[in-house]
């Protein structure tokens, strides 16, 4: 049973370099210069899962992203990893979207891809980290969703069974396909692109999807981008939960004695 699996991926700033992000206190704008971009790590686990399912069942994988023109890079990476085709949702009208408007845009993009069996996402991203988009895509497409998935088995008859992690254990969830499934890193170890994969990627298609295509597939343009975002950023400021530290110096024994004395005095121990 060949599967068409769609994998939304996101280009995010590399968290190893988050310390470099600065805030201009006057303008309130964030400076990300010097911070390289990567594919959101959990999305790579999602793509790996798609590749494994395809290896078992056959079919095709479409990687999709919504972003500025440079986001094309994450699609190229996905194609190099083994996705068959890609799509870049890019349009000024998409800019400034919160999770709801993002999910609406991605859903319209997905609707333009014809029939599909499964949408595999990373459970959350390293930047926004809301984890809200997968469930919201499912709502707009009127299909079920399962999040926090660490194991997925696709069965015959258009169903899948997932192990869905919860506090204290897991839920065994049976879901009718098509569905949105978002995955945790424990689901697999993802492969790296091979040289062959990179070369083959050059011959694969990346379709560009604009707002007017989204409109064709049911999206109301007033409900995309910042216009379609019920939430908005009102202010940005530096967090300042600083304390005045008292440094204890001396030989290790002296430090130990002084620390224990001080902690007793503070009634901390």
């Amino acid at each position, binding site marked *: 049973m060949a599967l068409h699996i769609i994998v939304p991926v996101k280009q995010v700033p590399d968290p190893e370099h988050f310390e470099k992000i600065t805030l201009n206190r006057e303008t309130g704008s964030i400076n990300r210069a010097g911070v390289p971009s990567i594919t959101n790590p959990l999305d790579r686990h999602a793509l790996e899962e798609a590749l494994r399912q395809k290896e078992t069942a056959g079919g095709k994988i479409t990687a999709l992203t919504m972003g500025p023109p440079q986001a094309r890079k994450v699609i190229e990476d996905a194609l190099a990893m083994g996705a068959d085709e890609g799509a870049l949702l890019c349009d000024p009208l998409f800019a400034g979207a919160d999770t709801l408007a993002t999910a609406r845009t991605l859903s319209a993009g997905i609707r333009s891809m014809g029939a599909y069996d499964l949408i595999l996402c990373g459970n959350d991203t390293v930047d926004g980290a809301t984890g809200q988009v997968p469930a919201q895509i499912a709502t707009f497409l009127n299909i079920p969703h399962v999040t926090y998935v660490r194991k997925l088995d696709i069965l015959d008859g258009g169903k899948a069974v997932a192990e869905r992690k919860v506090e204290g254990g897991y839920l065994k969830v049976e879901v009718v396909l098509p569905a949105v499934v978002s995955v945790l890193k424990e689901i697999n170890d993802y492969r790296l692109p091979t040289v062959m994969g990179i070369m083959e990627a050059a011959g694969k298609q990346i379709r560009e999807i604009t707002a007017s295509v989204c409109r064709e597939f049911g999206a109301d343009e007033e409900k995309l981008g910042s216009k379609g975002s019920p939430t908005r950023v*009102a202010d940005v*400021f530096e967090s300042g939960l600083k304390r005045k530290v008292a440094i204890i110096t001396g030989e290790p024994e002296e430090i130990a004695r002084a620390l224990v004395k001080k902690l007793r005095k503070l009634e901390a121990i």
Partner: protein
Amino acid sequence: MKDIVVWAELREGKVVDVSFEMITKAVELGDTLGGSVIAVVIGDTCSSCANELISYGADRVVAVEDSRLALYQSGAYARVLADVLVDRAPEVTLIGGTSVGMDLAPRVAAILETGLTAHCVDLYIDTIDGTDQLVQVVPGWGGKIMIKILCPEQRPQMATVRPGVMEKGIPDYSRKGEIVAMTPDLNDDDFMARTLEFVKEKETGVVLESADIVVSGGFGLYASGGFQLVEQLADALGGEVAGTRPAFDHGWITEERMIGQSGKTLRPRLFVSVGASGAMHYTTGFQKAKVIVAIDRNPDAPIFTVSDIGIVGDLNTIVPRIIEELQEKKIQ
């Protein structure tokens, strides 16, 4: 209506702590907005937990009961909660950010086409452009920057909050409230994703959130070859062991003991950090501890800016002396 709805989550029949934390916050918001606090609980037979919800501050408890809802069902729960919200039209809806809450909230927000802000570290009402609005504060970029988010027009304004970030109030068992039990109108479409069973996994017995004393270790333990010093210090202090993400990645701690933005948020009486430089996404996990002690060999480590007591030096020579000092005092 300026009401606040809180979705109360059940785990094995009992209301989880974060739901009480949300009710406490809802009471505070309700005082400013002049509205009531409504707790919604969904499950098999769940009206028995209503009294506890009322004691924490719920004015009314809506108990949606059906045997098919004993376990979390993502489609059914979302539709049921959305229906209650359409009916009550509250100003604000709060959902505890457990793995279940984080799954339920976005679907409900999408059904209602309203705004939802995840992992809020602060929530309060402010008058902006003439209307009372919920200010939702979230950390950005690993906690370096704080972001204030608003949902100016759509209602309800929805927010999720991680367990332990906000305080649970003190229950008043003499409080009275209204309890409404209702049977939902469910159909097959609500169960396209169907939870078949809950499988319990090894009880770690770790309840970090209730520990008075926590000793946390970071990457600095690498040179020591492991976490023994952290464990011994925790033992000597009578506290629990915790660690940073690198500590988890190295297998020195399990995920339940990981502190920080993507781990646990704690507020113990004493928090001792050993060998961790203090990246924001780690320190947000314990910044509300009463007393914070940091031990690190780098005098410029940012952890010293968020600590009460700092020790600059080699943890391999200092920590054993501290353990000795504690044990010596004990014998006396």
